[in-house]
């Protein structure tokens, strides 16, 4: 089998150097071929352990993203004036923390910002051709859209970004270090916020925040963003946007259903609870 393989390589390769290598391989005895193959496997085995320590494949993207985030590029203004030099956000203008968020989450939000809210490419499926022959799930008429997110500043800015820009920025911000500084709130607010975060409001069909956003609101994967470490004003503003229908880019309309159940007091209490937690990301 080894011989067959080598013959195949011989036909494909054109250069003289490679041809001489192949002919040398042909002259090797059976055991040395086995040894050569084994040493290749050993090399690959060792390299996969060495790779993570030697170089980071995302480093070039991170550097370009850093350049764009701090200095901007041509017409594109920098992100740092609003989102902070460390990506920590700004509570005064309800600007979110970006440091340590999942890169796919950042990318998706930028895509949704860039999408024109009036042209969501929503497709309402026509009536199925033959219900008898295709007994599929047509229980409801469901409209699927890619999702939109309204923000007067970000809509304009996100449209300037290319796919590469979005990728670079996402890599840069996901690798930033963030350490939250817990803030003090009064006891009653924290107690009510904790009750909502850990247990929700079962008698109104509202699940706990932590059941999807992870214990301590630390986020889970690309879909469920962290709540801890976000400015209080940002969390409240976003829930208001869900309720007003200005943000509509969640999965399975989960967050829209939940936001509809939240009172103004709930928003304040739960945001204060997460602002009170200690939380760090990307730091030892």
């Amino acid at each position: 089998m080894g011989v067959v393989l080598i013959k195949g390589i011989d036909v494909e390769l054109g250069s003289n150097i490679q041809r001489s290598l192949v002919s040398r391989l042909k002259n090797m005895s059976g055991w040395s071929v086995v040894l050569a193959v084994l040493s290749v496997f050993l090399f690959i085995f060792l390299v996969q352990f060495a790779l993570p320590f030697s170089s980071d494949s995302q480093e070039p993207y991170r550097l370009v993203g850093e350049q764009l985030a701090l200095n901007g590029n041509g017409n594109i203004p920098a992100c740092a004036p609003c989102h902070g030099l460390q990506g920590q956000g700004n509570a005064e203008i309800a600007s979110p923390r970006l440091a340590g968020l999942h890169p796919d989450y950042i990318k998706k939000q930028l895509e949704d910002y860039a999408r024109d809210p009036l042209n969501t490419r929503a497709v309402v499926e026509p009536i199925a051709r033959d219900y008898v022959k295709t007994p599929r799930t047509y229980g409801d008429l469901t409209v699927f859209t890619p999702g939109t997110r309204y923000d007067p500043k970000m809509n304009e800015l996100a449209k300037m970004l290319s796919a590469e820009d979005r990728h670079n920025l996402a890599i840069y911000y996901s690798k930033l270090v963030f350490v939250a500084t817990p803030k003090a709130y009064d006891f009653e607010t924290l107690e009510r916020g904790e009750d909502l975060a850990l247990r929700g409001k079962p008698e109104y069909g509202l699940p706990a925040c932590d059941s999807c956003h992870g214990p301590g609101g630390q986020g889970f994967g690309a879909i469920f963003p962290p709540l801890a470490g976000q400015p209080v004003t940002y969390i409240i503003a976003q829930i208001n946007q869900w309720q007003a229908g200005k943000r509509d880019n969640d999965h399975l309309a989960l967050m829209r259903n939940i936001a509809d159940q939240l009172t103004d007091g709930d928003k304040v209490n739960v945001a204060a609870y997460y602002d009170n937690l200690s939380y760090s990301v990307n730091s030892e």
Partner: protein
Amino acid sequence: MKWIFLKWVLFFSFYNVVLSVAAQEIGQSLDSLEVRPSLVNSRLSLPTQLTQVHVISPGEYFAPPLVADISDDRFGDMVRMGRNIFINTDVYAKRYAGNGLNCSSCHLQEGRKPHGIPLWAAYGRYPMYRHKTRTVVTLEERIQDCFIYSMDGIAPTLDAPEMKALVTYTKWLSKGSPVGVDLPGRGLPNVSRTQDLDPKRGKIVYETRCELCHGKDGKGQKHTNGEGYIFPPLWGGDSYNKGSGLQRVRTLAKFIKGNMPLGASFSLTDQESLDVAIYIWLQERPRNPKMSWAMDFFFPNMAR
């Protein structure tokens, strides 16, 4: 007598063949022309289901006491221990837990959610006659069955501290609820089927509504630190076994209708819930511990 036994064996072997054929059909690829591409690859669903809206008015369901109001005495300590076991069974009742589930994986929101098998509605109904065992069972015996089947583990004895703590927690949670009354939100909502159940349709529902959290393989997703599940496994070795209540298609459909997707209860229709329930029912999971290995090998799809 012999003939009756033979008849049953023949019946079940035939039953088994039919089911395995059905299971194979699920694996077939779907006709791309007949399936809406948006359904298979969904990202968002807008509120178009205007015919059926589940509105909860204040005071409709029983409101259990707050955790912050647990008293600072021996009773309160027992309640806290029971709550810890309930929401983190793997840690606080490690010797009895057999799989990756907690009590609160099924009794949602720490046993508080109406239509999510709430504890406060169950406490006043026990001891009760149970059709499964054909005996009158106490709350403790019912909890033992939860450990044996749903947790696929070992039953704590009736005098075990874990058992005492769980019963104490249940009692505390149902403070102020009447005894012997069917409270609104008890157990699970009813489902009624309109068509024959179809696991193919169930697979589509699973991929559009369940896969996001429970994963493509139905094995759930673990916490970021790797301890325990944030989204519990629906099948596989870490899920409930074949003797548990959720292995009954109807019960699972009721659970799905009343609680899933989390935060969007009653968003699936009865038929969708039943279809996805039979799809989940057909998957692999631990055997019923009360059934022999041979029975499990030859009739793997028999619930009990």
